[in-house]
Structures are given as structure tokens and as C-alpha cells.
């Protein structure tokens, strides 16, 4: 392929590489600033002249983060775990919330997305329209009915009140349907003619082909639920049930934002997501002829 690209093309790509590199730097900057900021003293955080590298690295922000609140590690019935820093419990809660949402969503969305794309059934068009309409509706307006529902189910102030609506949220189904659309119907048909059951067709033929879609769905769901601040705010109240971003917010004073605390919390919170991203990243490249068929 290289021998086909002309000189002009090569120059174009070099320019592109440089540009992408520069833009990537600006994308990196906020994270750099947050991580270094979490080790700065208050004076340097508030300073009017930018402090690019902390002159003294301190861990006070992290100490504050861990010391200010406490919560039990777990509670099973009357069995209460050892008391740990609130921030750790929040981190566990957030990981749990995101992981469960991710796993369940991937499963339900893969099945539903496959059915929507490859099955002919009554109500298919209506269901799909409803899915798009539901995504279009701003989440803020459904919060109050949702809150009442969760209260009557006694799920208010439990992590499930946040997880369940995320599973119902149809982004994942929509994403996987778009992926499954691209898989040739003939492959599914062929499998059926060979006498495979519906479930086998799904697990052995369909699932491997929509894997990149499921991988993307996994990451997006994980991160969306991680960042779904408003829902968490409304549904969770007890210190032991909070998520990390929520917990940090409750440590702010009136008219004074403790930036050090926020940055320490964000730095801490971004570690698990980056790990998840790296783990699931390999799924993206394993795809087979996605989008091979014109829509």
C-alpha cells in the first residue's frame, strides 16, 4: 500500500500526525492538571500564576479525602464490616454500580439488539420508534416519577435505584442493533438451516460477530453510569451508599470550593475507568466485517 501513496500523500499524513499529536496534548492537559493539582498545596492551587509542576508534592488532599468521612466496608444484615475511609467505600460503590450496570446491560442489550436487527416480529417498528423516542427524552424530566417509583419499591437510597434505570436506558440496544444490522442475514439463516437452536444461533454465530459492538457497549455503559451524576444525586443519600463524585461534592463548604479535594477525588476515580478501558480496548479490533452490508 505504501508504494502507492505519492509524496504529496506522505506530506499530508505527516502534517496530520503532527496535528493529531498537538490536539492530543490539549486532551491530555486536563488530566495532567488534575493529577498534579491533587498533589499541590492550597496556595498553589489557588494561585493566579499557573504552577505547571508542584514545587512541593504533598498528599494533604488525599489525606483529607480519606479522613473526612468514614463508612463501613460492608453490611450484611446485622453484620457490619470494619470502618474504612468513606472515599474507599464510595469508590467500591461506584465500581460495583458501573460493573453491574455494564454486565447486565451488555447481556440484555446484545439479546434485544440482535432481535431488533435480525428478527421479524409484530411491533418491531413501534418498539424501535419507542426506543429512539425514549433516548430523546431528557432524563431530568423522568427523574421525579422514577424517584416515586423507586421509593414505592423500597429501592430509594440503594445502589439499585441507580443501576436499574441504566439497564433500561436503550442506548446499548440501539448501539448493538446498529452493529447487528451490518451482519449478513444469510449467515444467521444458514445456521438455522443447519438446525441450530435459536439460543445456539445467538451464542455461537451472532455473539462473536457483534463482539466489538458489545465491547463498545460495555465501555460506554460503564463510563456513562460512572458519570451519571444527576441520577446518583437524586437517588442516593446515606454516606455509605454514595458514589465517589457525589461524596466529594458533600465535602464542599459554602462559597468555597476545595479544588484540591475535587482533583484528588477525580484522579482517584479515573484510575478504575482507565483500567476498564484498557481491558476492553482489544475488543474493538476483533471485529468481523462489521457494516459490510449497506443499510
Amino acid at each position, binding site marked *: 500500500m505504501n508504494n502507492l501513496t505519492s509524496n504529496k500523500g506522505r506530506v499530508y499524513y505527516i502534517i496530520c500526525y503532527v496535528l493529531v499529536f498537538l490536539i492530543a496534548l490539549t486532551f491530555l492537559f486536563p488530566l495532567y492538571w488534575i493529577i498534579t493539582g491533587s498533589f499541590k498545596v492550597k496556595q498553589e492551587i489557588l494561585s493566579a500564576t499557573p504552577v505547571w509542576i508542584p514545587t512541593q508534592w504533598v498528599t494533604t488532599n488525599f489525606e483529607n479525602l480519606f479522613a473526612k468521612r468514614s463508612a463501613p466496608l460492608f453490611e450484611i444484615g446485622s453484620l457490619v464490616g470494619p470502618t474504612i475511609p468513606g472515599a474507599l467505600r464510595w469508590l467500591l460503590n461506584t465500581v460495583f454500580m458501573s460493573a453491574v450496570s455494564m454486565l447486565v446491560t451488555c447481556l440484555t442489550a446484545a439479546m434485544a439488539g440482535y432481535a431488533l436487527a435480525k428478527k421479524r416480529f409484530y411491533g418491531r417498528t413501534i418498539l424501535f420508534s419507542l426506543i429512539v423516542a425514549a433516548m430523546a427524552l431528557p432524563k431530568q*424530566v423522568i427523574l421525579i416519577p422514577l424517584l416515586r417509583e423507586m421509593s414505592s419499591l423500597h429501592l430509594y437510597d440503594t445502589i439499585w435505584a441507580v443501576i436499574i434505570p441504566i439497564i433500561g436506558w436503550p442506548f446499548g440496544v440501539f448501539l448493538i442493533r446498529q452493529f447487528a444490522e451490518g451482519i449478513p442475514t444469510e449467515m444467521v439463516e444458514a445456521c438455522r438451516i443447519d438446525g441450530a437452536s435459536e439460543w445456539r444461533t445467538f451464542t455461537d454465530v451472532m455473539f462473536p460477530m457483534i463482539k466489538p459492538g458489545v465491547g463498545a457497549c460495555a465501555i460506554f455503559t460503564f463510563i456513562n453510569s460512572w458519570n451519571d451524576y444527576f441520577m446518583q444525586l437524586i437517588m442516593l443519600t446515606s454516606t455509605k451508599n454514595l458514589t465517589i463524585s457525589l461524596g466529594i461534592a458533600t465535602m464542599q463548604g459554602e462559597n468555597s470550593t476545595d479544588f484540591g479535594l475535587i482533583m484528588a477525588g477525580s484522579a482517584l476515580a479515573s484510575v478504575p475507568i482507565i483500567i476498564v478501558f484498557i481491558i476492553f480496548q482489544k475488543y474493538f479490533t476483533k471485529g468481523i466485517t462489521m457494516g459490510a452490508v*449497506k443499510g
Partner: protein
Amino acid sequence: MKPRTSAGRLTSRSLVLHENVAAYLFLLPFLIFFVGFVLYPMFMCVYTSFFDATMGREDIFIAFANYKELFNDEVFWIALKNTLVIVLVSVPVTCAFSLWVASVISKMPIAATSVFRCIFYLPVVTGSVAVTMVWKWMFNNYYGIFNYLGQNMGLIDKPINWLGDTRYALGCIILILLTTSVGQPIVLYVSALDNVDKSLVEAAEVDGATPFQAFWKVKWPQMMPTTLYILVITTINSFQCFALIQLLTSGGPKNSTMTIMYYIYYNAFKLYRYGYGNAMGVILAIIIAILSAVQFRLGREK
């Protein structure tokens, strides 16, 4: 919709029944959550929009009065205009920019692709509160980095109050929105580019197509489902732009960054006008749904 190739073969009635049962069994787990915790509250939202609903008393049925008020609400129209500007700018730019980045980084060695993909995804990962805080500092009127660089390079002669000036505030919001929204499209485009049928591209190149032609004639059509998804998602996200406004401008200065989402929030959560807020939500949903339908139609014609 799709040409019904499969339906043609399923002639016998039992096969149709089988297909239906199978489809609904596959849909069932999702439907339980979807109907119970999305459709039902959604229905409640539409229902409440016909009521004068507030805190601490029974709702009063007022039919379309909320909608009528909406049409005479000056701020609503400003919010609608701003929201449309955000959508019209950010959707095409997001798509084009992420396609360009994806096409550049997908040509790199695999390790480099991974690294860059990760970097462009970082603003999404880091969470909006912290990232927004950093941006606020960069746009700062008094010692922000943009004014500092701009003045040093001689681009501007005195500090600009980026977020406090009606001329620039919305533009700044759009810029920040872009950085937090290109992550997903880039990830998707890179994988879509990876999965393009290589033999078709090689065939085209043998036939003497330039890389540019090969891209538009061969790769682009194959990526259509991905593009469609990205378009719809980006449109919805831009319409629902809220956190940035809440954290940065509260809709100001002089309503120049007021978006529908923020206005809904203000009415429902600050003034407790649930019915009115829901009416706005319904209108917003209708607009987005129509736009999505149009995008689908266009996507299919191509």
C-alpha cells in the same frame, strides 16, 4: 425499512409464530427494565405536562395551558435557539473531527492507535466536574491560559472575558462540549475503519483509485451504520447539554448560553414547576425524535 429478504422465506404460519416468540424471548430481559423504568416514567412525564404540578399539593388539570405558556415564553425561545446553534455546530464538527482523527490514528501502529484512542477518550473518563473546572480556569478572565497565550502571541491586546461575554460564551461551551464528546465517535470510527472489507479497498486501489476516492467510494458507505449511530447519539447529547451550563454559566451572560435542558432544570428543580418543565421536555423530545427520524431516512437513502 430493510428489504424483507428473510420474511419472504418464512411463509408458513408456524414459522412466523416461532419467529415472534423467539424475538420476544430475546427482548424480554431488556423489555422488563425498559418498560418499567423508562417507558412508565416517560408516560408519567407526558401525563404531568397537562397539569399544574408543584410541590406539596395535588396536581391541577390544565390541559394545554403549559404548552400555551411555552409559546409565549421569551426565554424558552432563546433557549431553543441556543440549543439549535449548539446542535448545528457540534454535530457536524464532532462527526467530521472524529472521522478525521480516527482515519489518521488507525494508520498508525497498533500500540500507537491504542494510546491515542485512549487519550481522546480521557475527557470522557475524567468526569465532567473536574474537567469543567480545568476549562473554567483556562478561560478565566484574569489569569486564564487562553488570555495569557493570546496576549503573548499578540493575537489579542487585552484580556477577553471568554465566559462572561455574550459574543464568546456559547462558542466556549461548544468547544468544551466537543472535547468531551468526540471520545465515543473516535472509538467507534477506529473500529469501523478496521473492519472495512480490505479486499474491496485493495481492488479499488488496483483499479487506480486515489486513497481519497477509495475512502469515499469504498470505505465510507461501509461505515454508514456506525455513522448513523454517531449522528443520532451526538445529536441527542448536544440537545441535552446541561452539566457544562450548570457548572460554568448558569445560562448567562444575559441568557446567551441558556439551553432547553438547563431551562427545564431551572423550572422543575428551582421553581418546582414540574408540569411546565415536563411540557418543555416533551417538546424537546419531539424535536429530537423528528431529527433522528430524518437522519435515519437520509442514512438509508445513501
